């Protein structure tokens, strides 16, 4: 099977700095693929190599099975949506969208028809004669994407195009982008540092750090089964507890935290041995919270509510363990049950042993 | 508000007036040609009289324009050529009559003083006295085989692309003489004069190819001749003599039709503020020893009686090489230019410049 996009051992160096380090990836046709990583991780460099603005030092890039080495951006079957969209301010919307068609010598009549069609498909029919500054942020966004999609590229590259939008609009655009991708069926490669954008829209997400892919997988697998401490920390929120492996019983390890508590956790086979320094990750939303202090669970803490961070559905509670003064962030269920929770109250926390992840502590690439 | 403004304005105007008045008290503002007021002479004058001399270098047209713009203010003494005094005075009233009793008449060569007085008198008032005289002719690399030069040589194929002259009235007049006309006699007959200029124009346009460049300043001409880019030029005697001293073979040559003679004079601007200092300066520089110093600086002789004795031999010699008695007698002295001729000349010069 040929993939829409394939990278084989691609590397890029700027002076002493290894921006992209031996990346390989394969993206099947029609998928929404995100590259997620903090700024400086090399994701923009990788994207620019895909677009053709720079050439890899090593390795090769294939689009629809065709090697791209030496092919300039204007000859590649990929198009790019830029961070600040890069709509041409001196042209109207129609001219902006027709720009690529005109360069490909598409006759005027056909050009006009294609422009009208694509505007229809992005739900902005008949705005050909408006100028760029007359559009709202979201409309510009869609026009920028339409300007690329009208050329029917094999792959569409998106360089954090939502970064400049305000939060509310960003939430809307996430949904719209996904819909557009599904409607056009084009392969999207989306780079972002915002894990929520990546999770919501993507079929596959690659988490990138220090020029390498830490993990590639579906949003669910990244969330539930992070392979590395970096992924565990970067994808979603996490509480981190530092400790030592005390003993291992089958697939369950007992961890003694530095503060002296014992926690049980499952772990991937043969990755741990007793006496090892480890970090234990528990997601705030995986922790049960009860007012009843007499609960018995495999992992259990009694603590005092330090503060309540109210944020509607994303509200959280900061709880301090009474014994060890370890702080944990816990999601606050909005089921009325805890509406009257106040700081200083004593509560109990518990979680399933399968809900925590454990990684060796000498991994330096933690976020 | 308006009152304040008026007050401020009056205050600043009177302040400016006071500053300039106080500065003028011991100052002579002299508008003259390059070389006519050497630093050595200025220093000596200052020492003897305590009057500071402020020199502005200029030329005939510039002097008239400057005085015209201010209606004769800004300077205390100017040095126009004698042929340009009466026309400018009648037209723009930029000079005031001279009080000859303030001058030591015996310091002047009598014939020159008399000629200048005659040429610059309007309604019985004398407007200038002579200072420095000189001639315009040809400057050439002198060769044994050629002993007679004419302004017509400027159009000769022998000098193709190696010729330079000024695009100004002396060139027109020099060519007119060389072509056998007498432009000075036609000064009073505008029609005849225009006809002569027409012929000169045609000739200058026909041989424009000969011209390397029109020169505009004496130094620029000397540069062109010294570098050999130009081998024949119409120019001032002093420049030719200077080059002769340097090179030995380039020299000033009076043309067959006669060199053109000019006299630069002293005149008082209508609104000059220190006439006394002006007269003092004239009397000072007309002393033979001082006049000789000026001759050495400017390269031209003065109207000072007895100054030749003090001029160094070298300069006297170059003068003697260039001139014998007959060529001296043949010098054509510029008579006063009647107003209106300059307009005709100007159009002629424009057309020559524009011709391709």
């Amino acid at each position, binding site marked *: 099977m040929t993939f829409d996009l394939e990278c084989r051992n691609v590397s890029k160096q700027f002076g002493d700095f290894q921006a992209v380090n031996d990346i390989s990836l394969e993206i099947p046709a029609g998928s929404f693929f995100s590259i997620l990583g903090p700024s400086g991780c090399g994701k923009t460099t990788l994207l620019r190599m895909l*677009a*053709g*603005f720079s050439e890899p030092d090593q390795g090769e890039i294939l689009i629809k099975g065709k090697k791209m080495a030496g092919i*300039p*951006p*204007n000859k590649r079957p*990929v*198009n*790019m949506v*830029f*961070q*600040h969209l*890069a709509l*041409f*301010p*001196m*042209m109207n919307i129609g001219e902006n969208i027709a*720009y*690529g068609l005109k*360069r*490909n010598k598409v006759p005027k009549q056909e050009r006009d028809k294609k422009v009208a069609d694509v505007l229809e498909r992005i739900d902005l029919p008949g705005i050909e004669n408006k100028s760029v500054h007359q559009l709202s942020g979201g409309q510009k966004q869609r026009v920028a994407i339409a*300007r*690329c999609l009208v*050329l029917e590229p094999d792959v569409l590259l998106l360089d954090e195009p939502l970064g400049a939008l305000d939060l509310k609009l960003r939430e809307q655009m996430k949904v719209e982008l996904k819909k557009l991708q599904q409607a056009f069926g084009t392969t999207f490669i989306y780079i972002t540092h915002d894990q929520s954008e990546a999770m919501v829209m993507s079929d596959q997400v690659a988490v990138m750090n220090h020029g390498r892919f830490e993990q590639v997988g579906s949003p669910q697998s990244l969330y539930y089964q992070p392979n590395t401490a970096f992924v565990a920390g970067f994808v979603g929120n996490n509480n981190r507890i530092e400790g030592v492996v005390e003993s291992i019983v089958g697939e369950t390890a007992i961890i003694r935290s530095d503060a002296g508590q014992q926690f049980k956790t499952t772990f991937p086979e043969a990755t741990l041995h007793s006496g090892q320094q480890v970090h234990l990750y528990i997601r705030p939303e995986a922790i049960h919270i009860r007012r009843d202090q007499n609960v018995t669970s495999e992992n259990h803490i009694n603590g005092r509510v330090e503060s309540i961070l109210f944020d509607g559905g994303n509200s959280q509670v900061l709880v301090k363990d009474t014994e060890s003064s370890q702080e944990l962030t816990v999601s606050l269920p909005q089921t009325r049950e805890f509406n009257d929770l106040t700081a200083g109250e004593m509560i109990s926390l518990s979680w399933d042993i399968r809900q925590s992840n454990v990684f060796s502590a000498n991994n330096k690439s933690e976020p | *508000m308006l009152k304040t403004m008026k007050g401020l304005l009056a205050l600043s105007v009177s302040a400016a007036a006071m500053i300039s008045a106080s500065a003028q008290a011991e100052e002579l503002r002299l508008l003259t040609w390059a070389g006519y007021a050497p630093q050595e002479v200025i220093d000596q004058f200052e020492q003897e009289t305590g009057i500071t001399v402020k020199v502005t270098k200029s030329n005939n*047209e*510039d002097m*008239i*324009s400057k005085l*015209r713009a201010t209606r004769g203010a800004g300077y205390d003494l100017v040095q126009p050529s004698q042929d340009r005094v009466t026309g*400018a005075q*009648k*037209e*723009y*009233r930029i000079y005031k009559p001279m009080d000859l009793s303030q001058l030591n008449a015996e310091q002047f060569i009598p014939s020159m003083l008399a000629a200048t007085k005659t040429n610059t008198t309007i309604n019985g008032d004398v407007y200038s006295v002579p200072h420095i005289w000189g001639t315009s002719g040809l400057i050439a690399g002198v060769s044994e085989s050629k002993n007679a030069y004419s302004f017509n040589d400027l159009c000769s194929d022998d000098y193709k692309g190696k010729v330079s002259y000024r695009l*100004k009235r002396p060139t027109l007049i020099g060519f007119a003489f060389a072509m056998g006309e007498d432009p000075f006699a036609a000064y009073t007959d505008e029609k005849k004069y225009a006809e002569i200029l027409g012929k000169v124009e045609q000739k200058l346009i026909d041989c*424009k190819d000969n*011209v*390397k*460049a*029109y020169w505009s300043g004496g130094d620029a001409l000397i540069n062109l001749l010294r*570098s*050999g*880019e130009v081998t024949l030029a119409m120019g001032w005697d002093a420049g030719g003599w200077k080059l002769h001293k340097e090179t030995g073979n380039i020299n000033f040559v009076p043309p067959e039709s006669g060199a053109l003679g000019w006299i630069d004079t002293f005149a008082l601007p209508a609104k000059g503020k220190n006439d006394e200092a002006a007269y003092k300066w004239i009397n000072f520089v007309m002393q033979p020893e001082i006049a000789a110093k000026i001759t050495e600086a400017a390269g031209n002789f003065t109207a000072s009686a007895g100054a030749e004795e003090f001029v160094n031999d070298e300069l006297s010699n170059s003068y003697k090489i260039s001139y014998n008695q007959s060529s001296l007698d043949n010098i054509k002295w510029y008579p006063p230019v009647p*107003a209106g001729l*300059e*307009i005709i000349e*100007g159009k002629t010069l*424009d*057309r020559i*410049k*524009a*011709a*391709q």
Partner: protein
Amino acid sequence: MNGKKLSFYLLLMPLLLTLALLILLPQLDMLGISLRERVSYGVYEFSLLHYQAFFTEPLYWNTFVRTAVMSILATALTLLISFPVAWYIAKIAQGKNKNLMFLACLIPFWVSELVRTYGWMILLRESGVISGFLQWAGLADAPVEMLYNDITVMTGLVYTSMLFMVVPLVSTLEGMDDSLVEAAYDLGGNHFTVLRTVIVPYAVPGIVSGCIVVFMLTLGNYLTPTLLGGKDSLWFTEQIFTQFITRFNWEQGAAFGVLLLCLSSLIVWLGLKLSKQSFKQAMTSDA
């Protein structure tokens, strides 16, 4: 009049005085002088004679046309040469290099125009540096005269004007998001079409304001065309100078001055119309 108003007018006063005394008054005086004719010694009367002379005497008209055409050409050449320079300064050069490049454009202005022009004369004259070098290198067997022709005048004019074109271009180009250029390439443009369809249209305000300044400076230049131009060289400002200074014909000179102002304004206006720019836009582009 209350205090606030008074202070407003007082603050405005220097500007108004400058405009009125230094710009408006002399122009009006010029206009007045240009509209009179000398009848006899010191007597003048109203006349359009000098304006008539401009249109009926082919010499004056030709001189103006030649000056205008040369100025337009010089402006176009300056633009052509300055654009890559400005591009380099705005987009490619970094930090120290950028300042050095700017400095290089500025250095000619550390000496007066006269000295600058004499510099060119020393280089280009028959017995000059370049001619000497060509002979030394065996590329010419006789001295080469490079002065006194229109090409030299053009070189001098472009040299003098560069800075005034580079500065507005740099400030416009610096404001351009690099991704516009990348987007244009990405959408299939090649070097030429990207330049034509994106970069140049974006830079139009800078181009127009640079061109206006350079055109006006060139048209009003006196020293460069007079000193570098040869015996056939005609320049309109030289004609004005001649009328005023050597011909004592202030009336004609003033008429030429007024005509120069009107005709150059007309040319600038036409240029703005053609490039679909407004004067205000062009003049505020580098703000």
